[in-house]
């Protein structure tokens, strides 16, 4: 992980990150439910898509230079982020503030192994969902005797957007859910008192 705070909340503990993941998915589920009852996700589906994408970019991270998780590609942002105060702005204008160190975004072997592992787990989970959508779509073509083709199409439309939402967020969610508590920064610990 790169950052330890999001929206001002400390995310060093695993329990905090799990609450964040649950909160993000509850928010997205509420958006999907609201969109479904509003217009069957016809136009509101795009808003849900943007909500999922921005949640992935700015809160969860991984795909992008912002968010809790380091970029999966190991590359930093191309442009410097907006300065957070006037001092930083003045330093940047005078050239005293250099670009962020690329090593800050580089993944080590353990992070690469974790990245690949969570993507495998997410792919397997999404495969079940896509297989369910595939089965419903097949039944929509050749509907069985106990259900109508129209209901199958409705279910396909209902499951397609959640599949997209999960696709944008599932690897990061698995990573944030399973990573252990972050070790405290050694610089923040109390210095040892040497007896004179």
């Amino acid at each position, binding site marked *: 992980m790169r950052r330890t705070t999001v929206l001002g909340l400390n995310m060093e503990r695993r329990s905090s990150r799990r609450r964040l993941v649950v909160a993000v998915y509850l928010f997205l589920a509420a958006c999907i439910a609201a969109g479904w009852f509003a217009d069957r996700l016809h*136009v509101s589906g*795009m808003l849900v898509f943007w909500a999922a994408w921005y949640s992935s970019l700015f809160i969860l991270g991984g795909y992008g230079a912002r968010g809790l998780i380091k970029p999966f590609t190991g590359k930093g942002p191309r442009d410097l982020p907006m300065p957070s105060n006037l001092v930083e702005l003045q330093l940047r204008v005078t050239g005293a503030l250099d670009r962020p160190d690329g090593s800050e975004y580089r993944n080590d072997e353990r992070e690469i192994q974790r990245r*690949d592992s969570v993507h495998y787990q*997410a792919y397997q989970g999404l*495969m079940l969902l896509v297989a369910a*959508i*595939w089965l419903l779509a097949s039944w*929509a*073509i050749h509907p069985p005797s106990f259900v109508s083709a129209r209901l199958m199409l409705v279910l396909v*439309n209902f499951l397609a957007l959640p599949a997209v939402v999960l696709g944008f967020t599932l690897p990061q969610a698995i990573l944030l859910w399973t990573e252990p508590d972050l070790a405290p920064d050694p610089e923040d610990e109390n210095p040892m008192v040497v007896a004179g």
Partner: protein
Amino acid sequence: MKSPRKFLFFISMETRRRRHTVVIGYYSFFAVLMIFRILFRGGPDTYAHLLPLTFYASAILGGLTINGPVRPFSHWQRNIRDGSAYNSNPRKMQWITLFRGEPLRTERYDEHDIAMRDHAHYLAYAALRWITILFVLFGAVVIIDWPPPRVAQFLLFLSVPFCIVFFSLPQAIILWTEPDLDPDPEEQPPQTVIRVVP
């Protein structure tokens, strides 16, 4: 690549070039099938009948099943004991072995195999993510004014190529990137130990 099979329908899979040919042929076959289905079988409605074929055809490359050159993904972390490598009845595995004509490999997967599997899934996930983003961004502009039945028909039309790629992309990446297989030690010619000098 620790593959349980070195042949796919009598095609040798030991060299990278052969595996590249198989992957290109696999996707080309489906592309041609879709084009023919659209042009000569009544239009996009009947084209959607290809959907069930996408999952079953992915078994050709392996990964999801015990068939195919790529070993099953889900068993790469199972304990392998006494020939029941796939948590199946050993007697059933014997019949499958007889049917396939070669025994199933039962050694455990090492770290390289697991890392290769996971990395292939990461690459496939990243590629499919971009495809989904492009479709939602540009496709939504096109279909936003369409009535729901036409939208459903369009989604069925796109679901076939998506499922073809989704169910087979990790296996294709593994087959494409793995180096040539080492020759079987039993097949190597015996080395001369003693050289008779006249």
